[in-house]
C-alpha cells in the first residue's frame, strides 16, 4: 500500500530520532504486522488504534524494550525506538520472507493444511455488548436461536456437498492434464492454468502480477547481498543511543517502576489461554488416573506371575528377552515424545494441491525431483491422519462442555417445582 511505504529518508531521520518520522514508522509497522497477523487493515483506522495494535503485536512476539510501550499514542515521537523495533522484527519474524510468502501469486489450486483455529472473530467480547439485557421487551426468543442453529447446520451440509463436488472437478482436471505442465514437479495443470489455456486473454493481470513478483524477488536477492551494511548501520544507531544513554541514566530507574501498567486490567488473552490449558490438564489428569489404575493392576498381576515362575524364566533366558522388549518399547514411545516437542516444520499457510500417484517406480518419488532441488511435499495421508486426531480431540472438548451443561441443568431441574425432567 502506497500510504504505508516510507521514504528512504524516513529511516535516516529515525536514526536521529526525528519526530516527523514517527508517524510514518508507526504506519509502516502497522501495515506489516497486520499482514502477518492475517487481518485486513483499514487505512482509515485511527492512529491510536494502529499504535495500540502495533504495541500488542510487539508484546505478543516478545519485544522487551519498555521505551517502546511508553511512546505516546498520537505518534508524535519515538522514531528511533520504532527503527529498533522494526529491525528487531525484521530478523525475529523473518519479515521479508514471510511477507513474500504471504503475498505469493496464486497459480495453483491451493489449500491450507494446518489445523489451527480459524480466525474466528472475538465472539466473547461482542456478545456482552450486543446481547440485550433480559428485560421483558428485548427478549430474544429461544426458538429463534434454534432456528438459527438449524440454518447453520444446513449451510454446513451444503458447504460439504459443494466441497465434495469441487473435489471431483479438481481431481478430473488434475488427472486429465497430467504430463502437460512445464514444471515437472507439478506435473499437471491447476484450474487456473487450465482456464488460462482456454482464454489466455483474460489472464493478463495474472501475468503482470507474476512479473512484478519476480521483480520483488530479485530485489530481495539484492537486499540479501547488502544486508551486512544494514545491520552495521543499525549498530551505529545503538552506539548513538548508548552515548546518550550515559547522560540520562538517572531516568531509567523511573522507567523500571512504570514498566508494569495496570495489572488489574482484564487480560482476555491470558484468560483464554489458561482456559485451554485447564481443559487440557483436566483431560490429561483423567487419563493419568486411568493409567494409574491400569498400571497398578497389571503390575500386581505381573509380579505374581513372575514370582511363581521365577526359576523357569531364568532358565529360558527371559532377562535377555526382557531387555529386547524394553528397547522395542522405547522405540515405540519415541514417536510419542517427538509428538510432544514443538515441530519445527509445522506448516501453516497454503500448499499447492498436486495429484501424484504412489507408484514407487515413478521417477518423481515423493517430494524428490530429478531435475530440481527437492521441493517440500506433504502427503495427504499424513494430513488426514492429523486432522482425524484433531477432530477427535475437538469432539471430546465439545462433549466435555455439553457434560458441564448437563450437570448445571440438572441442578436447575431440581429447582423446577412440579416438573420432573427425563433426559433422553
Amino acid at each position, binding site marked *: 500500500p502506497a500510504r504505508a511505504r516510507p521514504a528512504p529518508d524516513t529511516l535516516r531521520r529515525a536514526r536521529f530520532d526525528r519526530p516527523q518520522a514517527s508517524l510514518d514508522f508507526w504506519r509502516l509497522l502497522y501495515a506489516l*504486522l497486520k499482514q502477518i497477523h*492475517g487481518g485486513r487493515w483499514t487505512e482509515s483506522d485511527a492512529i491510536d488504534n494502529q499504535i495500540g495494535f502495533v504495541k500488542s503485536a510487539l508484546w505478543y512476539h*516478545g519485544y522487551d*524494550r519498555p521505551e517502546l510501550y511508553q511512546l505516546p499514542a498520537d505518534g508524535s515521537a519515538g522514531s528511533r525506538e520504532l527503527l529498533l523495533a522494526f*529491525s528487531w522484527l525484521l530478523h525475529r*519474524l523473518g519479515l521479508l520472507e514471510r511477507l*513474500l510468502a504471504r503475498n505469493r501469486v496464486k*497459480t495453483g489450486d*491451493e*489449500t491450507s493444511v494446518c*489445523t*489451527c483455529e480459524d*480466525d474466528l472473530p472475538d465472539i466473547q467480547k461482542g*456478545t456482552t455488548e450486543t446481547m440485550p439485557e433480559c428485560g421483558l421487551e428485548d427478549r430474544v426468543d429461544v426458538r429463534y436461536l434454534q432456528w438459527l442453529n438449524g440454518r447453520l447446520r444446513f449451510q454446513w451440509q*451444503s458447504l460439504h456437498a*459443494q466441497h465434495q*463436488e*469441487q473435489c471431483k472437478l479438481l481431481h478430473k482436471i488434475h488427472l*486429465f492434464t497430467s*504430463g*502437460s505442465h512445464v*514444471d515437472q*514437479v507439478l506435473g499437471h*495443470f491447476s484450474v487456473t492454468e487450465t*482456464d*488460462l*489455456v482456454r*482464454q489466455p486473454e*483474460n489472464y*493478463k*493481470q495474472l*501475468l503482470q*502480477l507474476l512479473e512484478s513478483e*519476480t521483480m520483488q*524477488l530479485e530485489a530481495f536477492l539484492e537486499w*540479501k*547481498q547488502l544486508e551486512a551494511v544494514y545491520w552495521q548501520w543499525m*549498530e551505529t544507531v545503538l552506539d548513538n543511543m548508548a552515548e546518550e544513554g550515559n547522560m540520562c541514566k538517572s531516568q531509567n530507574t523511573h522507567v523500571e517502576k512504570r*514498566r*508494569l501498567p495496570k495489572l488489574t486490567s482484564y*487480560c*482476555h488473552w491470558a484468560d483464554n489461554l489458561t482456559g485451554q490449558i485447564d481443559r487440557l490438564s483436566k483431560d*490429561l489428569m483423567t*487419563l*493419568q488416573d486411568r493409567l494409574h489404575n491400569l498400571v497398578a493392576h497389571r503390575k500386581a498381576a505381573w509380579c505374581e*506371575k513372575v514370582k511363581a515362575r521365577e526359576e523357569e524364566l531364568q532358565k529360558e533366558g527371559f532377562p535377555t528377552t526382557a531387555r529386547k522388549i524394553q528397547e522395542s518399547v522405547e522405540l515405540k*514411545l519415541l514417536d510419542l515424545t517427538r509428538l*510432544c516437542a514443538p*515441530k519445527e516444520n509445522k506448516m501453516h499457510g497454503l*500448499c499447492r494441491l498436486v495429484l501424484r500417484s*504412489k507408484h514407487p517406480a515413478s521417477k518423481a518419488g*515423493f517430494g524428490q525431483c530429478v531435475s530440481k532441488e527437492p*521441493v517440500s511435499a506433504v502427503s*495427504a495421508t499424513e494430513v488426514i491422519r492429523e*486432522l482425524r*486426531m484433531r*477432530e477427535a480431540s475437538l469432539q471430546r472438548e465439545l462433549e466435555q462442555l455439553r457434560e458441564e*451443561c448437563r450437570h*448445571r*441443568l440438572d441442578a436447575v431441574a431440581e429447582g423446577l417445582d412440579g416438573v420432573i425432567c427425563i433426559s433422553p
Partner: protein
Amino acid sequence: PRTSGKSSSKGVASKQGGSQRTATGSATEVCAPAEPQKTLGLSKSAPNEQQSFSGGHSAGGKNSIAAGQELFDAGKKSCGFLGESSKKEDTAGASGKSPSPGTGTLQEKGCQLKLPLPYRKAYSRNSRAWEKCHLCHTSADAAAARARFMERIQTTVSFPSRLWAHPAEIEEELRVLQDVPSRLRQYVEAETADPPTLQGEYESLLTLEGLQTTVAECLQKLHLLRADCTGDVGSCSPACVPARGQTCDTAGVLALPLLCYSSFQELRDLFALKLQVSMLHQEIALQKVLMAELLPVLELSPCPEGSARLFRAIHTQLCQRGRSFPVLVRDELGD
C-alpha cells in the same frame, strides 16, 4: 488447442468478450443456496448454468481473496468446461461424437495441452526467482552483524530478562500439546486388551508405564505454561491482542510446499475433514457463548410459568445439539 470462439459454442456464456467480473461476483452468491438440490446433477446440469460461469474471471484479481473462496470460484468456473466432458463420459461411449468438433474433451486432449508461451516464460522466470531466494543464505558478515545487533538490543532492556516464554511461544507450545491427549488415548486403548503371552504382558506393562511418564511430563509442561500466562499479564494491552499470528520456520517459508494426494478418495477425505474440524471449532465457540448467555437465565432468575418449556429448549440446544429433547413430566398425582 486454444480455441477462443469454439469453446463458447457449447452454450457457455456468449458473454465471453466482455469482462463479467461483477457478474461472477454475484453469481457465486446466487449459486450457493441453489446448490443443495442440484449437487448430484451438477456436472450434468452445468450447461444450463453456464452463464454464471462466464469466462471473464481473472484469477489475477483474486489474489487477495481467501484461498478457499478462490478455489471454489475457480472450481465453479471449470464446471462449464468440464460439464461438457463429464456429460460425455457419463453417457456411455465417451469417444462418441462431440457436437463441437475441434474442442474435444479435457479427458481426451488434456495431456497434450500446452500453456501459452507468455505465461510459460513468466512462470519459469518466477519459479526460478523463488528458487534462488529459497536457496540464498545470509552472508557471514551480515549474520554476525545481525547477531551483534540483536544481542545488544536485548541487553539494553532495563529489567531482568524474561524468565518466561513470550506469548507467541506459549501459544505455539499449547498448539503442539493439543493433540497429545488423543494420541495418548490411542496408545492406551491399544494396551487395554489382555495380552496372551508373558512377553506380551511385559511389553504392555512397560508401554503403560512409559505413557504414564509422558502424561506426567505433559502435565508439568502445562503447569509451567500456565504460570507463564499469568506472569505475562502485566504488559499486555487488553484492547487489541492480535489474532493468533502464525509462527513458522522462516527459512522454509519461501518454498511453496506441495500437498500430494494420490486418489480421489483422499482428496475428498481431506476436504471433508478440514470442514469437520472447522465446524467443530465453530461449534465449540458457539457452545461457550450460549452457555454464558443461556445458563444464567435459568440459574439466576426465578421460575415463571413458561420456564419449563424454556428449560427444555435450552437443554436441547446446549446438551443435545438440538437433536433430541428431554421429556418433562408434571409431577402431579392423578386425581
